[in-house]
């Protein structure tokens, strides 16, 4: 036995001594048979409780499988569209904006595009709102950067003739080849971005159909050149939107 901390008080020592003199044994509440009976009852209760574990695990697994199935059904295993405040009015690209201007770069690009091909302000807005890397270049894309591949609308509008038409077609192909190098669209996209991309792709397809029709009907160089310029502008806008989408998806 060790000494107590407080040994200064005799009363404390007396208390301690009395505690130590207490009988160490107390009659147990029940004998061996009763202990066995209670132990068996306790074990049975524990086993009953354990029987629920596989059932709970199976239920959890079933719920998990159902959730996966529903997710696959609703999500289609592909792209999810996150709704925002915008709305697409029709497939030919009329983007209904709310009252205040959005700071979203892709929306601004889309507004510029929907002003029409003949609107120089729209083209200027497109160029102004684009990132500096995309505004800098107007030459054909030899280095593969989006800035080098982005179309300069003013210079495009100044070009005339079949030579310019061929040049526009080459630039369109260069931009499309650069677009092909971009990563796939993310699984979750914004409605505004997705609508802009889909609208631009639809309009490019329309322009392609129109050019095919004109070529079948008879070669009209002015019309083809105008359509090539329009197509170049659309492909450039698509490249800008996709580039912005890639940058946004990579930013935290």
């Amino acid at each position, binding site marked *: *036995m060790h000494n*107590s901390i407080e040994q200064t008080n005799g009363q*404390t020592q007396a*208390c301690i001594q009395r*505690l*130590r003199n*207490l009988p*160490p044994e107390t009659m147990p*509440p029940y004998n061996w048979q009763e202990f066995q009976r209670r132990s068996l009852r306790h074990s049975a209760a524990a086993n009953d409780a354990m029987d629920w574990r596989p059932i709970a695990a199976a239920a959890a697994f079933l719920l998990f499988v159902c959730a996966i199935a529903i997710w696959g059904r609703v999500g289609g295993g592909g792209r999810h569209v996150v709704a925002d405040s915008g709305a697409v009015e029709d497939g030919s690209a009329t983007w209904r904006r709310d009252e205040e201007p959005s700071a979203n770069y892709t929306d601004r690009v889309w507004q510029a595009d929907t002003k029409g091909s003949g609107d120089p302000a729209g083209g200027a807005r497109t160029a102004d709102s684009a990132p500096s890397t995309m505004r800098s270049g107007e030459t054909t894309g030899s280095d593969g950067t989006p800035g080098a591949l982005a179309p300069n609308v003013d210079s495009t509008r100044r070009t005339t003739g079949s030579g310019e038409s061929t040049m526009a077609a080459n630039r369109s192909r260069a931009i499309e080849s650069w677009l092909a190098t971009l990563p796939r669209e993310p699984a979750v996209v914004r409605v505004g971005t997705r609508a802009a991309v889909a609208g631009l792709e639809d309009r490019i397809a329309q322009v392609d159909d129109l050019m095919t029709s004109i070529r079948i009907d008879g070669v009209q160089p002015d019309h083809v050149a105008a359509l090539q310029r329009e197509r170049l502008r659309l492909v450039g806008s698509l490249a800008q939107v996709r580039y912005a989408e890639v940058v946004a998806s990579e930013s935290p």
Partner: protein
Amino acid sequence: MVRLTDINVPPDVLASARSGGECAQAAVYAAVAPATFGLVRRLAGSRALAEDLFQETMMAVFQNLASFRGEAPLGAWVRQIAVSKCLMYLRSPWHRARLRLGSDGDADGRWVESLLPATPGPRAESVDLERALESLAPTARAVVWLFEVEGYSHEEIAQSFGRSVSFSKSQLARAHAKLRQWFEPPVDSQTCTTL
């Protein structure tokens, strides 16, 4: 009357009990049960709670009897199990919440004292030591019993409670003070009046 740590059983009985012999297990139970219940009764305070803890302790003893290596007396091993069960209960959130309901701030169980008469009455030799022990808070009672009677050190108590050594020392000092109050003769309080 022997203490739990002094209890040992013959090796052949112990071997038979390990292998599941019912008679041997009954003999082991008869050997250790009284002292085990005495210890649990001191630590738990109430008899109903002590019976539950005693049942759990003895079940753990027989479930783990095969793992007993025999390096120490059987009673010491059983005592360790009993103390662990009791301290687990004292440290349980349910028990703490029950204490908190009755006392705010001082977790030493004023609710226990509130159940006792305001004036402990005649405290001299007629005082019941068991009652004095029960008047202590559960934690303080466990600390004072483990330290003064069972011979635990402050470090061992602190480790068992998962607290610091200072916790054990302060609980012990507080318990001593309360026990002294029980055994001090009543002093007639006289008011001093200045003329």
